[in-house]
């Protein structure tokens, strides 16, 4: 059990880290914007935006993968455009796994951010305005820093979900060893083999270790943020 990692395991691990990090990076800025808009604005299609964001949570991941395939696949409208314009292919590519993970993670990143923005005392933003800060600066210098705990929470949930995602990934990106075979996919595959329990167990432990590390990091950041305000 404490045997060194096989090259296959290392491959799955680094791929998973890459996929989850890319997903989180890609998702965090739009999520912050969405969280802010949902917390502060009222507009006609708000419920639709909310519904779109949360769909990946309600639908089985396999269905999300199918939708992605229909839209971003080689014959899908967006997929075709991406291919033609940038020569980018998502399906069977680690970037595709990252897109799937990002979509699945999005609702989990947006919610805590929205909650954090809603909790901000609007008086503080008013104070910033009377000091001359235009709205964008108020957002960057006051709202966003005050929403930091939400950002951290959202990032943790999002990273964890991206790291653990499996249903949408296999459907959209396949299970190609070294390219799209993330840790969870590898675990699933091992479990489908009679006698694959040992391998699955080792991979699961790897997942757990990563998640514990991510937790530690977030806890440390969180504690700092809270202490600053006390």
């Amino acid at each position, binding site marked *: 059990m404490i045997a060194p990692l096989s090259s296959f395991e290392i491959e799955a691990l680094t791929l998973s880290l890459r996929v989850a990090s890319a997903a989180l990076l890609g998702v965090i800025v739009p999520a912050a914007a969405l969280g802010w808009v949902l917390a502060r604005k009222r507009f006609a299609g708000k419920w639709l935006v909310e519904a779109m964001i949360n769909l990946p949570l309600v639908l089985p991941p396999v269905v999300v993968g199918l939708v992605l395939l229909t839209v971003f696949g080689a014959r899908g409208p967006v997929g075709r455009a991406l291919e033609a314009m940038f020569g980018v292919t998502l399906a069977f590519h680690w970037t595709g796994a990252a897109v799937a993970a990002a979509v699945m993670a999005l609702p989990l990143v947006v919610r805590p951010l929205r909650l954090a923005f809603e909790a901000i*005392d609007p*008086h*503080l933003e*008013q*104070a*910033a*305005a*009377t*000091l*001359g*800060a*235009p*709205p964008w*600066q*108020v957002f960057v*210098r*006051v709202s966003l*820093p*005050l929403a*930091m705990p939400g950002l951290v929470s959202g990032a943790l949930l999002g990273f964890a979900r991206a790291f653990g995602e499996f249903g949408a990934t296999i459907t959209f990106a396949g299970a190609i060893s070294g390219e799209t075979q993330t840790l969870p996919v590898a675990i699933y595959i091992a479990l489908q083999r009679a006698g694959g329990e040992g391998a699955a167990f080792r991979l699961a432990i790897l997942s757990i270790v990563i998640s514990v590390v991510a937790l530690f990091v977030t806890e440390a950041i969180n504690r700092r943020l809270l202490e*600053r*305000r*006390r």
Partner: protein
Amino acid sequence: MSGLDFRVRARRDDFELDVQVQAASSTLAIVGRSGAGKTTLLQALAGLAPRAEVRLAVDGRAVVDTATRLDPPAHARGVGYVFQDGRLFPHLSVGANVAFGARYAAAPMSTAEALALVDLAGFEDRRPRSLSGGEARRAALARALLPRPRLLLLDEPFTGLDDERRARLTGNLQRLRDETGVPLILVSHDARDVEQLTDHVVELRDGRVV
């Protein structure tokens, strides 16, 4: 032509404010009982009351006239505001709080200068939460002074301070006013401050001038 000239109409649910003031002086005190509408008035002038009707001219220059669409948002009015309830940014040090407006101002004071005006020299690195009530209020005053606004609104800036310090602060503010000629509107219940800092007193009751 020096002076303050404004008309403000604003509603907060049941409460209605309708105030017109024309003062030759550019330093003005607003007095009145608790709930008379003083804070509501200042908020409308600062651009923080979205549906208020406001006309404001400072020293003959029109700053706001919502009827003609001259309605700059709060951040573009150049109106400084010391809130009745502090409102320091909890995520920033005292120094960063005070320096907040520096980058939007044409000729801001230095942080040290502003802190000295309120007797808080050396408090730069303190966290807002660690301040006493009076210290926090003074830090908020310094923060509003630093950008040298073209009009300064002060909502009870000296409450909870001992007489000695109060006198020092009003003295500092008086000097600042005399040197820079910044117009100011002060809400206060203390006759001494009112007398020392302003030339014209307006009393509000139930949202009207009496």
